């Protein structure tokens, strides 16, 4: 199950290392390598219920944080969750504030690209694991995507910040490996990308993926090799590194990146590593209970970035708002300050 799904919004815990420690570690590293590998070029924004109440000023402050982190790409995880939209929707329950509009406008003013997410259902992970539900779910989901994209196209394409669409499903390596499942997902992605291409011919299309340790890198690469051969409309695959949710380890990660990179290169698609900025503390698979996480140590994030930089030009964080900004929790604020100090200290030139 993907880490982006159902993440608790209770941001607790503390950043373990201080800025001074970061600086001390960074001093020994060559500036050039740090300058290229230590950057986060993008972040996800996962809209949750609380975001409905955010004022435009709050969003502006968050985007100011993005600017300070030199973020140049935002992936909006979704614009509709279940029956609730974050824009003025006719079909879904519309939000009071035009959240998507604000994000697009703020991004435009700061020359940040936005990949606009579409529709998500909170029972996604339950339904795709049920054989008798999967097909019906995907059929229903693509209808939702059609409605969402149809409604959003005139909203988002008026902004220059609109880069493309992010398909909100996260493709894992276990639920779609059988022939029928694989066909179903291929058909879903084929239909979705064709529709989106029809609506917005110039838009970039992306989807995210993740892996479990139980799948070998070779099998993962082959899975995506076949998928991309059939689904020609996908431009970007956001590969979640799984470090924060303990799906992969830093030792294993390079092999998985390499496998994905090879598969994507063969088909001329772009790999964008997704760097998890958090450390999961409860919830499956770490423990029972709800998902909880704290900001990861900068040391760990640095390692993730170093690995990721070998396979992707743009590294996307999951996610700055919750774990690396001044706008949400004290822990995230501490992490933000530390990362900023690290950037200053090492003269990171991320743009």
């Amino acid at each position: 199950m993907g880490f982006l799904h159902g993440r608790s919004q209770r941001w607790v815990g503390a950043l373990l290392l201080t800025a001074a420690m970061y600086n001390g570690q960074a001093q020994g590293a060559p500036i050039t390598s740090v300058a290229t590998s230590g950057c986060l070029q993008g972040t996800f924004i996962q809209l949750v219920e609380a975001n409905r109440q955010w004022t435009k000023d709050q969003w502006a402050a968050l985007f100011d944080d993005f600017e300070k982190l030199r973020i140049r790409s935002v992936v909006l995880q979704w614009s509709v969750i279940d029956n609730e939209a974050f824009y003025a929707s006719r079909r879904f329950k519309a939000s009071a504030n035009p959240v998507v509009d604000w994000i697009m406008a703020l991004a435009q003013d700061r020359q940040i690209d936005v990949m606009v997410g579409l529709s998500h259902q909170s029972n996604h992970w339950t339904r795709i694991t049920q054989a008798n539900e999967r097909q019906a779910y995907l059929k229903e989901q693509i209808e939702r995507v059609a409605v969402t994209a149809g409604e959003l196209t005139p909203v988002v394409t008026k902004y220059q910040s609109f880069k493309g669409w992010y398909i909100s499903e996260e493709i894992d390596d276990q639920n779609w490996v059988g022939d029928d499942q694989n066909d179903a997902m291929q058909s879903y992605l084929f239909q979705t990308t064709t529709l989106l291409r029809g609506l917005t011919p110039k838009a970039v299309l992306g989807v995210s993926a993740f892996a479990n340790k139980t799948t070998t890198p070779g099998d993962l690469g082959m899975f995506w090799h076949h998928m991309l051969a059939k689904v020609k409309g996908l431009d970007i695959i956001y590969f979640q590194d799984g470090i924060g949710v303990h799906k992969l380890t830093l030792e294993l990660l390079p092999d998985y990146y390499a496998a994905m990179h090879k598969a994507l290169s063969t088909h001329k698609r772009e790999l964008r590593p997704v760097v998890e900025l958090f450390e999961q503390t409860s919830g499956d698979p770490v423990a029972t209970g709800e998902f909880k996480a704290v900001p990861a140590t900068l040391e760990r994030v640095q390692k993730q970035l170093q690995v990721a930089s070998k396979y992707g030009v743009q590294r996307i964080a999951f996610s700055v708002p919750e774990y690396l900004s001044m706008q949400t929790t004290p822990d995230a604020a501490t992490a933000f300050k530390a990362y900023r100090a690290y950037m200053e200290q090492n003269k990171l030139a991320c743009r």
Partner: protein
Amino acid sequence: MKNKPVVQLLGYRAYPRAQSSDPAVWGRCAALGLALATIGPNAAADTQALGSLTLPLKSRMQNSDNWLLSQLRQFRAYPYLDRAYKRVNTGKLSEAADEFKAYFEVEPDDIFSRVAYLNVLYKLQRYDDVSRQADILTAFDPDNAQARLFQGLVLQAKNKQVAALDTLLPLLGQANADAKTREVAAATAVDLALATRRYDDAQKALSALPQRRQEYAHLMRQGAAFAGQGKWTESAAVYEQALTVARTTQEKRLVRETLFYQEKQNGNISGAIDQVKAILDMEPANLEWLRTLAMLHYLSEDRGAALAVMDRIPAGRLQTQDAFFRANLLLDKRDYTRARQDYARVAEETTERDMKFRALMGLGYAYSGLEQTKDARDAFERASAVQQVPEASKALATVTKMLKMATFDTLKRGGPSHDVQITDLDSDQPVRARRLRSSQASVPKKTPVRPVALSKSPLQLQQESLQQGYDAISRQNDEAAIQAFEDAVGRGADTVQTHLDMAFAYNRLKNWDRARDSFLHAFSLDSNPQNRLYVARSYVATGQPDLALQYFQLVQPDLPYLSQDEQKAILIEMGYLYAKKEDFEMAVSVWKASMAYGVDTLTLLSLGYALEMAKRDIDAVGVLEKIDATALDQTKQLRLFNQLSQLYEKTGNAAQAHNYMLKAAAVEPAAIKYYQVGLYEQKHHISDNGAGNLQKALEMDPENAIYAEQLGYHFKSNKEYHKAASLFERAIEKNPNRHGLYQDLAYTYKQMGDNEQAVKWFKRSIDIKYEEQRVAGRSRKGVPADYQARLSDGEPTTQILYAVADSARPADVVEGVHDLSMASPDNADHFAPVGYHEAVSDLSLGHPMQEAMTFGPTQVVQATLGEDAAKAQEDITSIKHGQDEELYRMRQEVRELNRRFQFNLYQAYRSKSQQQNVASTPPGFFNSGAIPSQGGAELIYQPPGIGYQDGKIFQVFARGLWSNKPDSLRIADESVQGSVGARYKPFKTQDLFVSIERLFKIGSQAQNDWLARASYAWTQGYDIRPNESSWNQTLFYGDLGYFFPNSGITALYSEVRQGRTFNYANQFTVTPHVMAAGRVQRPDPDKSSYAEVGAGIAVKYRFNENRYEAERSSAEVVLQYRHSLSERRNSGWVATAAISF
């Protein structure tokens, strides 16, 4: 600051750019001709920022403010404007737009800044806002050229190209338009005209552009316009001229590319080759153009040149498909070694099934050419494993045969291990192996396998597959056609037409999903309007209306290019899809739009339906009334009349509703129609209240119990009881299961005064109720406690439902069905199982059952269960109480109908009594409140026939009354009073009795006299409520008597009680209560009038009942403390006991 120009801020381009150098991209442009493809970077006509446009002479709108107010307003507005420009300068345009907006709220008259604001909004792509602002400008000045220009640009941005062009073209000749505006308009119009293939307009717009005839961009557009007009020579000449003025490599390449497509379109392969070579001279390493050149050489059958070009591609950049193409060329050139290498690579890398097959076959041929027969056999075997086609089998057989022959030669030469080899080769055919061993047959050794396919090019193989597909279609063998087309796609015929052919074949096979995918493939290759339509309609077929709607929406910009019929059909289809999604407003919108292409009755009908569903009933009536019903077939006429009837009923026009019901009945003169009309007339008291039409329905369908029943109800309400009873009996005869009718028949007979028949039918109804209760209480297999869990497990609801309906108690069944219906509300099957109807029947006895039958099962669930479990339980309990009360009421009816004799006895005791005759009888007990007494006995006789007539009662009676000695229950003999008399209850529903009786003296203080009386009782909750634990009880009793001729006394007694009754086993009731009572007498020489209030408790026991009759007898004890409000009367306790037999 206000006059600061907006110049150079925005730099938007009015012309779309088409700069791709990717031939594949260019290839996709072919559908639009060369026009767009030849438009290059538009330096000459590229729009400057609109700030450079000259301002109109009037830079302010006229305003009635005086100078001072105007200055104040400008002063207030200035900060907004200042900030707006600052934001513009820092690139924060959305914030700038906010500032402009605030500025115009204060200072709306500043035209100059509004143009700047338009510019900002346009840059922000807020086109609706641009339109609004442009409208403001044109409202002030209809000829405002800049506003018109922006309106055109917005239309262009919204992809309404035709409208945009039509808006911009008039600007070219508009006198008041400044030169810059005209230039931008002309430049944009050129592109729009080219995009919409209006090449004459393109030429016209080009001629309006100033002095740029020798500029590159102008020439490119000129060339495109000529090409669009089919003037190829002129076009080529202009492009050649463009080549001479092109300044950059990119521009030159673009001209070459355009010429290349022109040559290609005209079938001039050698000319196309020349252009590609020229391009490659500029970009020698461009992979796509190298491929294109190789393919052109191949098409011109110069395979050596093709191979040479392919060899120019560096090994590191050679893709799988390149290797495949080169391998085929190498095989053709018999360069087996290199061919083998390329094929091996392709077979390893490709994921396409057909390419893999072809690569393995090629590998086999290459090995064969290299005389590596075993390797060839391995390759052919692998190919066979990928695809079972004759070519592979044939090649495999040939190479296997060669191997055998080779082994045979070895055997003949006495090789050391020949037996093993032969067995290995042909182990499943030892006989044949032996025969071979002894054969003298000889096959030329080491002949390379050169099957027929070897000499075929990939293109030929494609063509073969395609031909096989078309042949299969002509044989109406769609499965074979699909297979052939898939082969063709695998062999490189990945074309729009192949996918469309496949899609149509899938459609004929009704394999909608596959058809949709094929249409999508075609669409992804060429998104022309027709392919969008195909996809939209394929999504209609797969039941995905939202997707269908999106693709229909994609067709909208191109609607003007479709035929009128097609445009209309699309809008109508969209309407149905919106209606399916219950978006009736949108359905109304598109159906109305479709009317622009001609009005047809079917669409009007649909529009009427959508309007009704959108709750626009009046509009719906308006639309439907426009329909000429005579032009409709019978089915549609019926639909129209029924809908109009419903609409008029909803809008309160019963007469018109009735009118259309009659029309519907005339169209379809069926019994059901007349029945419906009759019901409607009955409900609205129209005509003869439905009698005629109900009668007609029954005449047409005499066997229909419902019609008979309904007509019976009509007669019953008309007090024509004989007819009603006859029809009810007929209905029961036709349908004995209409249990509610037995009771109504009994009441009908009761109303007729036929007590004997009434009792008979009441008893039958009572029997049915008892049986229903017995069934309801029967033990079933068990409560389906697990159905919720099964539901969670994803088991289909229908499956669980039948288990529930089969196994549960009635309340559980209904509850279970309710839960399941909530789980999947669209599944009407929930209400189908017999068990469910039994359960509803078990629970809904009497009138609730009638309602159930009226509303139908879904409504029964909603009506009886509500939306949640607690409410459901409450409703079920209520239904049960209703059933119990109904049964009890019928048993009471039988009791009253059968009553002949009754005996009542009472005795009261009051502490601290000052008078002997102080207590009154229990109110309503036997009506003796007017005569003060402490005890009494009464015998009543109710004669048959006149004794009970539909609630009217006549009785004769004899009674004795007495008082007791002080502080004793002993009868004071001197007080005993006797009487005989008769009483009559004239009203069916009101407990009012009038009586006359002769009082005769028994004790010394009694009297001989006449008494005329009227007594009235109103009670609520006085009777038992079976199975209810408690209820409210209110009671009022009044008794007015006149003694004559001797006494001349008039007396009035009245009592009120309010209490709560508690029920124990439906036999004992206990009613704590408060009370007030009073007696007034005139004349009253003894001052015996009094008033008192108090509280007490009444305990009543009912007994002497049987199956059909409610309790005939009761015993009651009332204990009260009464506080006197009169000075001459003491307060104290009063106890009263009463028995009734």
